[in-house]
């Protein structure tokens, strides 16, 4: 789950990392009011995306009149697919240098990784590519947390001697915030060194591990919910992972890997999948609701039902499909492939209740569905 800057920065402040004084506003008038109180400010569009600066969503302003105009220009903008309806108005900081710091989950080392660069700011990715040595990375043991000694070693000679201790301290704090909040990623970019020598986090990106949401409910309430279509939201409410796609072939399969593969094989035979829909894990008992959702998509011209039972029992899923079928009496042609746990009973059910003979392989079912969808589209 992603968080806006305004929702992420308080985590840093609570751990003793300095952030600029600021106010969250939703109108141009309130932005002017904030500028009156804070002096020279920066007005920043709030959206969980890194494209805000480049898109004109971040503007320095001197005085209430400028702030009002800047806020009016930014409110209502669309940045990275997000409509901007609130702004962070922050007291402007006199920047001497910009650093970069982050802590994140690293699948490769199977543990947390801390990153630091003395060349932070907008172009940090480009700098990391052209001068890879300028971005230092270090895995650390999550059981002990990042130690001050490790942080010092990481920063090393990238910053002047006089700053080394402060930067290392900040990294230790950042790693603690990451661990205390089940972050997947916690990033400060830029980390400013001010003219008067302080370290201030000018921006902050925080991504919460989705699997940790049940134990971070309070924090998650401040996050940005995923943007879902109406059907996707219905899927979420039913506890089903449903993603609407552009194509015409509806897909119902069990397990994420098999569902993705069904999409691929539909693609391989020249069709386009209409959805991703996973009924893996305990959700295999929800086949009725799942099929109703797949068929509620008006783009669907044909349907592949592909079951390969392991934990998920195919006769239970097939029973669910039949229930939905009898309730909806859909007109789209459907093509079945059923294998694995419970397959003999499942095939017998299909024959007896729907008069359908499943295909011997999923490839045949997918090919037939692609052909049927093509016929229907023309």
């Amino acid at each position, binding site marked *: 789950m992603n968080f806006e800057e305004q929702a992420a920065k308080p985590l840093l402040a609570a751990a003793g990392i300095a952030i600029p004084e600021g106010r969250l506003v939703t109108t141009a008038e309130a932005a002017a009011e904030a500028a009156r109180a804070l002096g020279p400010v920066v007005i920043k569009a709030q959206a969980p995306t890194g494209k805000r600066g480049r898109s004109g969503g971040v503007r320095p302003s001197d005085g209430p009149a400028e702030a009002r105009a800047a806020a009016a220009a930014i409110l209502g903008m669309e940045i990275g697919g997000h409509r901007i309806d609130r702004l962070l108005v922050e007291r402007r900081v006199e920047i001497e240098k910009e650093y970069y710091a982050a802590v994140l989950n690293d699948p490769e080392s199977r543990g947390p990784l801390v990153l630091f660069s003395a060349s932070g700011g907008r172009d940090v990715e480009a700098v990391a590519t052209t001068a890879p040595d300028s971005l230092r990375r270090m895995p650390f043991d999550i059981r002990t947390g990042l130690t001050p000694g490790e942080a010092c070693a990481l920063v090393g000679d990238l910053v002047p001697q006089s700053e080394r201790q402060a930067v290392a301290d900040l990294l230790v704090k950042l790693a603690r915030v990451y661990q205390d909040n089940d972050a997947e990623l916690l990033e400060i970019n830029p980390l400013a060194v001010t003219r008067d020598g302080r370290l201030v986090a000018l921006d902050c990106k925080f991504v919460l591990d989705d*699997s940790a949401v049940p134990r971070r409910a309070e924090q998650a309430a401040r996050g940005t919910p995923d943007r879902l279509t109406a059907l996707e939201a219905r899927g979420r409410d039913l506890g089903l992972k449903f993603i609407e796609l552009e194509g015409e072939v509806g897909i119902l399969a069990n397990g994420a*890997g098999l569902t993705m*593969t069904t999409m691929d094989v539909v693609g391989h035979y020249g069709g386009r999948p209409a959805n991703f829909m996973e009924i893996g894990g305990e959700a295999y008992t929800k086949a009725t609701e799942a099929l109703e959702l797949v068929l509620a998509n008006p783009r669907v011209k044909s349907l592949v039902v592909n079951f390969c039972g392991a934990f998920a029992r195919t006769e239970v899923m097939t029973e669910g499909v039949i229930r939905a079928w009898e309730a909806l009496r859909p007109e789209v042609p459907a093509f079945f492939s059923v294998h694995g746990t419970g397959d003999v009973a499942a095939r017998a059910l299909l024959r007896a209740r729907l008069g359908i003979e499943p295909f011997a392989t999923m490839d045949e079912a997918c090919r037939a569905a692609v052909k049927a969808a093509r016929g229907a589209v023309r």
Partner: protein
Amino acid sequence: MIVRRHDRVLVQGITGTQGTFWTEKMQAYGTRIVGGVNPKKAGTVHCGVPVYGSAREAMAAETASGRGFDTSVLFIPPLAVKAAALDAIEAGAKGLCILSEHVPVQDVMYVIAAARANGTRVLGPNTAGQVTPGECFVGFMPAFNPAVFRPGRVGVVSRSGSLGVLVCLNLVQAGLGISAFIGIGGDPVVGTHTAEAVAMLDRFEATDAVVIVGEIGGTMEEAAADTVAAMEKPVAAFIAGAAAPAGKKMGHAGAIVSGGKGTYEAKRRSLEAAGAVVLDTPADIGAAVRSRLA
């Protein structure tokens, strides 16, 4: 760490609905279940084996009466996995099989760090387990279905349980059989990587060929290329997610293409350069493996 019939297996969460259902299946197939864990039911007998208050108690009791246990399989709710896994690691388990989905990633990393320090091999989380056809299985794969797990000479590594079933089914339909199936799990951070599982199958003398069942997301398939290149046994692969749009998690938390990383093309290119044959559809895997074994 291929699970064998002589391995002694502990089931943490043995008394739950799924724990019971799959323990009975594992026992019927030949897995040597030596005990279970449920702190609230310690001292009772379930599925014909003693229930202990903790994995440490189980190890102490089993060691007194025999040889302790080798591997523990966890039928445990996601937020309780960390404590249960640490219990088993401290007890001295050689292997852990974590089936649960939605375990917080930092808990997973903690467990992996502790396991590494104690010499414990972790499989998963979010895996369907492993099968050694004709001997035993650990987890919830349909090992008992002969259309899927006929004993044979092909080793299979998969991030996905359902897709693993499909691939094994296709191999059996092509007249082949399975020597060992290793489910490594669909999470972004897992204890055993593709390369390590492939290396285990390379060392497993009952295996003549290896099939890698990968997915978009992460870099485990790319990282396995070096292992594949050094092998004499033929390797075939299928990577799921060629048709998946970027930026969307395809069910598995680990299956996402973002920031240009973890793409289908990069995985396919790496494995092909290492000498593996990469198939467009799982239906072609059986024929591909047969021709390379001929």
